[in-house]
């Protein structure tokens, strides 16, 4: 398989790079100063693309690679891949579901606790020596607060299960009601926000869910409500979010994702009711290795004529 060209779109994991290099002719898109030259030179040997949450395979790239057979994403999110064009051309697409579900759900709860109990600010308080001058102020309890989840897929369900252990009543919004689920369904995101103390974004990003958390939703969540985003930056109207936070109309936010990563709105840096993370939802050694194994496994299966491990339906 060493002659099969696999184009990796950006640095994402050195274990993955090593494993791909052992099996295929790995081409690193980001190291080429002239990307169009790279594509032109290798257009007949590139049969696979490996992308992630930052860079995938858009229509232009797919059209520049006539021998492309498979796009294997080092992520569960598919918003950076033009699925329509892939389908039209019969190009297979795989992602990394399940292996990262727990990590993302763990982080969502970790963010809720960090935000409500001000763990990051407490740590800063101690490190700055301020504790010697007086106690930290009161924070907000998490246990028992209502959690509203947008999207009750694998990740949303895992978040609900964890929040239940903190005696939190669970509400959710989904395109349709889930029949076997004991949580309270709300038909609109605004209703969900109105009836929840904590709103968590856990749905896939699509045209329908872009800016699903808009000004109306933020106002419904209110000055005592908090927003947790472990989905995709474009789920939230970021400009409105900044205004809602700086004007005190929203109680707080903990964000792992942003509209234009790694850029984060400047106004958020100084706010003590905001926790900001550099897109680390699946960022553990164990999970990234498992994701890498899935990417490699899917490519190996495809090129040996076997069934794909995690094809996107």
């Amino acid at each position, binding site marked *: 398989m060493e002659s099969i060209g696999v184009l990796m779109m950006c640095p994402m994991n050195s274990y993955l790079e090593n494993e791909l290099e052992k099996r295929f002719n790995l081409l690193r898109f980001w190291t080429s100063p002239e990307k169009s030259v790279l594509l032109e030179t290798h257009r007949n040997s590139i049969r696979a693309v490996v992308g992630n949450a930052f860079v995938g395979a858009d229509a232009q790239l797919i059209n520049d690679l006539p021998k492309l057979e498979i796009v294997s994403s080092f992520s569960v999110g598919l918003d950076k891949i033009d699925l329509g064009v892939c389908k039209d051309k019969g190009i297979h697409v795989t992602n990394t579901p399940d292996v990262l579900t727990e990590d993302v759900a763990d982080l969502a709860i*970790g963010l809720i606790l960090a935000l409500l109990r001000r763990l990051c600010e407490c*740590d800063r308080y101690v490190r700055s020596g301020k504790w010697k001058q007086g106690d930290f102020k*009161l924070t907000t309890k998490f246990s028992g607060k209502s959690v509203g989840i947008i999207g009750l897929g694998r990740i949303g369900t895992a978040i609900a299960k964890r929040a239940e252990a903190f005696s939190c009543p669970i509400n959710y919004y989904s395109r349709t009601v889930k029949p076997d689920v004991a949580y309270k369904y709300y038909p609109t995101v605004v209703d969900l926000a109105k009836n929840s103390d904590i709103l968590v974004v856990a749905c896939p990003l699509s045209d329908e869910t872009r800016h699903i958390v808009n000004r109306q939703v933020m106002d419904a969540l209110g000055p005592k409500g908090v927003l947790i985003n472990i989905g995709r930056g474009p789920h939230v109207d970021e400009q409105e979010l900044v205004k809602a936070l700086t004007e005190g109309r929203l109680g707080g936010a903990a964000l792992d994702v942003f509209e234009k990563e790694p850029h984060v709105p400047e106004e958020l840096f100084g706010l003590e009711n905001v926790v900001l993370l550099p897109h680390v939802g699946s960022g*553990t050694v164990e999970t990234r290795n498992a994701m890498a194994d899935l990417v490699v496994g899917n490519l190996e299966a495809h090129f040996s004529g076997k069934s794909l491990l995690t094809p996107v339906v």
Partner: protein
Amino acid sequence: MTTTSFTQVLPRVLFVNRHAAMGVLGDSFVASTKFEILKAFESPLLLPEFLADQSHPVSAIIAPVAVPVTADLIRLLPNLRLVVTTSTGVDHVDLVECRRRGISVANAGSSYSEDVADTAVGLLIDVFRRISAANRFVKQRLWPLKGDYPLGSKLGRKRIGVVGLGSIGSMVATRLEAFGCQISYSSRNRKPSVPYHYYMDVQEMASNSDALVICCELNDKTFHLINRDVFAALGKQGVIVNVARGGIVDEDEMVRCLREGEIGGAGLDVFEDEPNVPKELFELDNVVLSPHCAYTSLEGLEQLGKVLVGNIEAFFSNKPLLTPVL
């Protein structure tokens, strides 16, 4: 028939220091028609002079951790009949002296056990997933410059050893079970009704754990319970979370282990000499520090106020204390 109204002398309850909750809740924190609060902190006099100045004796005292109820303090309060602490821990109360003088003691019960358990879990996730460190990274504008942040460690399937399975320890355990952690515990006595593996010896538990969460009380047996041997058993990837009392951990040894990479990280809400924190810890990214505020949520303190009032009212109506210690 005539009715005679009595000017009842209400029991006087001494409040030595201004509690954090009073700053937010005001006098409603501990308000009752059945007793009177005497606020020593509002007087410029030193406590002995303040007490000598009172016309009516003090029969109860509200004792936060910052106000140790020592034999000396008890001597200043000859009419003292009840001590009510604002903490679950009573290591700051001379129980021997209280017993000798027939003084009843009540604690905060599980008023804020949930809050402390929540913080313990929050600190554990923070250390394993580097939340505070990564938040600093972003807020210092380093993300566009330095690219990806170093990977953390998965919480699922980690073996967590809970030291002390009281109300806080049990709540920590049930929360962490939902994350797929494997729970074991060490306690004075085995608890037959719990599903977790029991260890009589903390060091043995440490050698079979990825993290220890300290939830036990501080007493003679638990002072420096977490020592060099336990840290060695916990190992280079091991994490310690302490939401109990600083004295349970040999702090100097812990600092040395952290600096030399002998253990993997720590989440600490309590220290041996608060508010002093070893400044060597400030250089470490795998440590999350908290100023003894695991219990201070607004809701937890409202609940604490109810328990304080409930205990005092019950005592002076000759009813059983809600959360008796002695």
